[in-house]
C-alpha cells in the first residue's frame, strides 16, 4: 500500500505509540482488503462503548491508547453507553457497573472524542454530507449514512473506527469506491408502508430475503413513494440487523439512486410478507409485557413530542424506558416534554438503549416498535417480544 510521508511517520512511531498502533490496524486492514492507499475521513463514529460489551479488556486497551497519546484528529462521536450517565441509579444500574462505565467514557474523553453516546450521530452534531468519506461503526448509522446521506463508509468495528479517528484516515476499499456502490438486486414493493414499525418489518423482509440468496448485497428499491426521517432510521437499523446490508438505494428518495443502472435480478415484496414479518417479531404474550422501550435507534425530538402528546395525563404501570441522545433529552427538557413524560411514570434513559444496557434476564417480555430491538432482546437479553406500532406500544404501557 502506498503511504504519504505523514502516514509513514505515524507508522514509524513519530506521532506516539497510540497513533502507531492505530495506523498499523489501518494498513493491515487495507492490505487484507486490497486497498491501494489510505484516504482522509471527515467524521468517525465509534461503537463498543458499553462496559457490558467491552469488559475489562476493552477498557484496558482504551486506557492504554489514551495514555499512549491517542487524540482524535477529526470529529469523532460515540455509540450509546451501558447506562444513562446522569441518571443510572433510577434505571437499576449497579454502582460497580456505573464506575466501570465512567472509566470507559473518561478514556474516550481523554482522546478528545465527543462523548455523545448515541446511535443517531446524524441527529446530534455529526452529520456528514454527500460523498464525504467517513469511518463509522454502528450498523444502523452506517446504513443511514451510506444510503440516506450518500456519505461513504465501510462497516467499521470499534477498534478500526478508533484507529480512523486517531489518524484521520481509513483504507480506500469497499464502499469508499464508486464502483462498489452500484445496486445488484432490484426490490419492488407492492404495498404501502407507513410508520417506524412497518418500515422495520420491511427491513427484516428485504434483509432476510437478500441474505438467503447469498449473492447480493446492495438493493435498489422502488415502490416507496415517501419516507420520513424516523421511518428511514428504523428501516436502516432493521435491514442492517437482519440482512447485514450496508448500503441501499430507494428510487426517487435516496441521493445516489438516480445515478444507478437498475439491476436485472428482481424480487418483489407484497403485503402478506410484511404482515408475516410483523407477526414473526411477536413471540411474547401481551398480558406478560413487563418492559417497554421506545428509541431503537434513539428517538428524534419529533418522536418525543409525539410521545408527550400520547402520555399527557396518563399513568404508566410498567417499566418504560425512553432511549434517546443527551442532545434530544435537553431539548425535551426545554420544551416541557420531559415533565409530561416523567409525570406518567415513564423513564428517560438517555446515553443508552435496551440493546447495550446490562439488563440480561431482568425482564420477561419487551414491547417495542423496533425490529432491531426485537432481535437483540432475544439474542442478547433472553426476553420475549411484542412488536407494535409506536402508538400501540404507548397504549400497552398505559393499558
Amino acid at each position, binding site marked *: 500500500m502506498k503511504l504519504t510521508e505523514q502516514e509513514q511517520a505515524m507508522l514509524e512511531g513519530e506521532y506516539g505509540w497510540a497513533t502507531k*498502533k492505530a495506523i*498499523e*490496524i489501518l494498513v*493491515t*486492514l487495507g*492490505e*487484507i482488503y486490497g486497498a491501494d492507499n489510505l484516504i482522509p475521513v471527515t467524521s468517525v463514529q465509534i*461503537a*463498543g462503548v458499553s462496559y457490558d*460489551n*467491552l*469488559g*475489562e*479488556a*476493552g477498557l*484496558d*486497551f482504551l486506557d492504554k491508547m489514551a495514555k499512549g497519546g491517542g487524540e482524535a484528529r477529526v470529529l469523532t462521536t460515540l455509540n450509546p453507553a451501558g447506562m444513562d450517565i446522569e441518571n443510572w441509579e433510577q434505571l437499576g444500574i449497579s454502582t460497580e457497573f456505573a464506575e466501570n462505565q465512567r472509566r470507559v467514557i473518561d478514556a474516550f474523553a481523554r482522546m478528545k472524542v465527543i462523548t455523545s453516546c448515541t446511535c443517531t450521530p446524524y441527529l446530534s452534531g455529526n452529520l456528514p454530507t454527500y460523498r464525504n468519506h467517513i469511518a463509522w*461503526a454502528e450498523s444502523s448509522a452506517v446504513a443511514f449514512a451510506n444510503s440516506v446521506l450518500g456519505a461513504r463508509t465501510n462497516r*467499521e*468495528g*470499534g*477498534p*478500526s473506527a478508533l484507529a480512523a479517528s486517531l489518524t484521520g484516515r481509513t483504507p480506500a476499499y469497499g464502499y469508499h469506491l464508486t464502483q462498489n456502490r452500484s445496486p445488484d438486486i432490484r426490490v419492488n414493493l407492492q404495498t404501502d408502508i407507513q410508520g417506524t414499525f412497518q418500515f422495520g418489518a420491511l427491513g427484516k423482509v428485504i434483509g432476510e430475503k437478500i441474505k438467503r440468496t447469498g449473492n447480493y448485497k446492495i438493493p435498489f428499491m422502488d415502490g416507496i413513494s415517501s419516507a420520513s426521517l424516523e421511518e428511514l432510521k428504523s428501516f436502516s437499523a432493521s435491514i442492517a440487523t437482519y440482512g447485514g446490508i450496508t448500503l441501499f438505494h430507494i428510487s426517487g428518495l435516496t441521493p445516489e439512486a438516480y445515478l444507478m443502472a437498475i439491476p436485472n435480478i428482481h424480487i418483489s415484496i407484497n403485503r402478506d410478507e410484511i404482515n408475516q414479518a410483523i407477526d414473526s417479531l411477536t413471540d411474547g404474550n401481551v398480558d406478560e409485557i413487563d418492559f417497554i422501550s421506545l428509541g431503537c435507534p434513539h428517538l428524534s425530538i419529533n418522536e418525543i413530542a409525539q410521545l408527550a402528546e400520547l402520555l399527557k395525563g396518563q399513568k404508566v404501570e410498567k417499566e418504560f424506558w425512553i432511549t434517546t441522545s443527551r442532545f434530544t433529552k435537553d431539548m425535551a427538557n426545554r420544551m416541557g416534554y420531559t415533565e409530561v413524560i416523567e409525570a406518567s411514570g415513564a423513564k428517560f434513559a438517555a446515553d443508552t438503549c435496551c440493546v447495550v444496557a446490562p439488563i440480561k434476564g431482568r425482564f420477561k417480555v419487551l414491547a417495542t416498535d423496533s425490529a432491531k430491538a426485537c432481535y437483540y432482546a432475544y439474542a442478547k437479553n433472553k426476553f420475549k417480544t411484542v412488536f407494535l406500532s409506536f402508538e400501540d406500544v404507548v397504549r400497552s404501557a398505559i393499558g
Partner: protein
Amino acid sequence: MKFLGRKIYPGVVSGQALVTKMAISFFGGVDPESGEIVERDHELQGISIAGKVLVFPSGKGSTVGSYTLYRLKHAGYAPLAIINRECETITAVGCIIAEIPCVDQIPIEKIKTGQLVMIDAKLGLVEI
C-alpha cells in the same frame, strides 16, 4: 513442509498446532478467563487455545471479539500464534492490539493438531 502466506502481525514462534476447520467467534465463543472454546457444537468445544498455534479458516461474529484476544493475552491464555486461510477484521485487529503473530493465506488443511509448527510471521513463513 513449508508454506508462504501473508503477514498480518509479525513475530517468530514455534509451538503445537491446534486445528479446526470451523470459524471461531472470539466474542461469546471463547471464554476470556480460561482460553477455552465454549461455542456450542464447535468441534473444539471444551478445548483451550492457550499457548497453542491456533489454526482456523477465518474469524466470525462481533467486532468486540478483537478485545477478547487482547484480554486473553493479558490473562496469559492467548494462542501463541494464529494461522488463517483468510484473515478478516476481527482476528487481524485482535492480533495487532494483542501483539499475537499471525499469518494468513495458508492451506490450513495440510496442518494437523499436535504437529510442531514454526512461524516467522514477518516473512509470512509457516513450517511444519
